[in-house]
């Protein structure tokens, strides 16, 4: 089982609106088609749309994850709901509280992090870089 980094700090953020949808990415390594498209929510919604089954005010809390408050953020819970929202023709305005996890560690499910399982939980300090190269995860100062 691949976990979310244990040093993740959790926040409730008020509010996610339709203006922030462009900052979101679907989970990496969840669906091959999403990865091929590049994981950006708005692009995935165009290429692989899904139905919007319920209005946003009826949803369970969306859970996002990223390295800093500036994003970008991966959707860890609610991928299908947000794809449905982004693909809808005239959806209701979006104004929902979301949970956001922040960590400087690498996460397998985050679109911007390397896919190597070995890198899970490796911390990224300011003085370090992490590079995925030839199936090796290189951590250090380059």
């Amino acid at each position, binding site marked *: 089982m691949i976990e979310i980094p244990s040093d*993740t*700090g*959790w*926040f*409730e*953020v*008020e*509010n*996610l*609106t339709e*203006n*922030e949808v462009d*900052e979101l990415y679907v989970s990496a390594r969840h669906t091959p088609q999403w990865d091929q498209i590049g994981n950006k929510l708005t692009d995935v919604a165009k290429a692989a749309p899904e139905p919007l089954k319920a209005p946003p005010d009826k*949803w*369970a*809390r969306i*859970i*996002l994850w990223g390295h800093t*408050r*500036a*994003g970008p*953020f991966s959707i860890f*819970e*609610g991928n299908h709901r947000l794809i449905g929202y982004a693909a809808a023709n005239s959806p209701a305005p979006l104004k929902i509280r979301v*949970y*956001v*996890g922040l960590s400087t560690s690498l996460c397998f499910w985050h679109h911007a992090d390397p896919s190597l399982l070995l890198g899970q939980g490796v911390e990224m300090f300011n003085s370090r870089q992490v590079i995925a190269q030839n199936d090796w995860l290189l951590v250090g100062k380059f």
Partner: protein
Amino acid sequence: MALIDMDWTEISIHNVISEFLRAERESFGALHPPWLPLIDSPI
């Protein structure tokens, strides 16, 4: 406005787990009927 400009309030991971389970229950309702508590004993 970007997400960074919104109001951020620190929460416990228990909140996150509870909402994750609620979402799972809504997706797979037959396995988690609503009259069952999401977390039996969170302590």
